[in-house]
């Protein structure tokens, strides 16, 4: 391929994006500043925000109850900016393991956790998670005993889901920041569980 230095030709879709954006700016529907600000806002949305919510639920029983009753209100209590999010937290217990999927597209609590990973949007995850959750979880290295009920949540409408994992043994006396550090995005989707050390 001819060396063109830093210049890379636009793909058809990149051309569409540039063209659409310029048209929208010319028509006064958006400005470049607004687009850049929105990009920055989305970059700032990372799983750590959800981890804070989980850590607080582990440390504060009354907060945990409020989180389970209304996930949106609980996040707002922590000052998290989550415009339009209707959040439902589902709790793992010794009897129940929860996992989230959107079979129809890729609904995910983006405004809390950020953009979902590629695999969450993939055909293989979306097709198989509702039908053979135990096999899919095993591919992620998570084996759930038969004595534990698996609840798969297919987000088909306006609610968005986050799994509240069980607090692992060996975290007694930890402060919230230390607890939050072991809560991964995958644990909040339900394909992993938090681990100590």
């Amino acid at each position, binding site marked *: 391929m001819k060396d063109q230095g830093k210049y890379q030709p636009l793909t058809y879709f990149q051309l569409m994006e540039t063209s659409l954006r310029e048209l929208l700016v010319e028509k006064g529907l958006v400005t470049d500043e607004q687009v850049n600000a929105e990009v920055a806002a989305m970059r700032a949305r990372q799983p750590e925000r959800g981890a804070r919510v989980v850590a607080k639920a582990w440390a504060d029983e009354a907060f945990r109850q409020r989180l389970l009753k*209304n996930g949106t209100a609980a996040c707002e209590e922590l000052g998290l900016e989550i415009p339009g999010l209707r959040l439902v937290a589902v709790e793992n217990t010794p009897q129940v393991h929860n996992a989230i999927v959107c079979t129809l597209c890729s609904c995910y609590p983006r405004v809390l956790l950020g953009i979902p990973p590629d695999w969450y949007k993939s055909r293989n995850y979306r097709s198989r998670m509702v039908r*053979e959750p*135990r096999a899919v979880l095993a591919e992620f290295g998570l084996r759930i005993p038969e*004595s534990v009920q698996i609840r798969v949540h297919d987000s088909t409408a*306006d609610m968005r889901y986050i799994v509240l994992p069980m607090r692992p043994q060996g975290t007694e006396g930890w402060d919230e920041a230390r607890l939050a550090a072991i809560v991964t995005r995958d644990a909040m989707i339900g394909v992993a569980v938090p681990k100590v050390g």
Partner: protein
Amino acid sequence: MKPQFATDYPAVSTRFKVGQRVRVRKTAPLGHIRTPFYIRGHVGEIERLCGSFPNPEELAQMRDGLPAQPLYRVRFKQKEVWPDYRGADSDVVEIEIFQHWLERA
């Protein structure tokens, strides 16, 4: 039944109660539909009333989707949904389904 997320759209009245057995209508019309194919015709139990929301089938066609339809979380036993389900008998799948896709079981 108190919705988990109250909205103030003009809404159709709620027909179903928590714990009630309902069947997902078995039909395959054209259009944008948020009731997955795999669950149609199956019987589950109302787990909660999520709230009432404008109909996405109508919103997709650039109409306002009003009056809002009650949206329920419905719980289904996996072994009843998939004939060859390999997992615990207690395993479930929970899906949000609009009232107009449900009938009494």
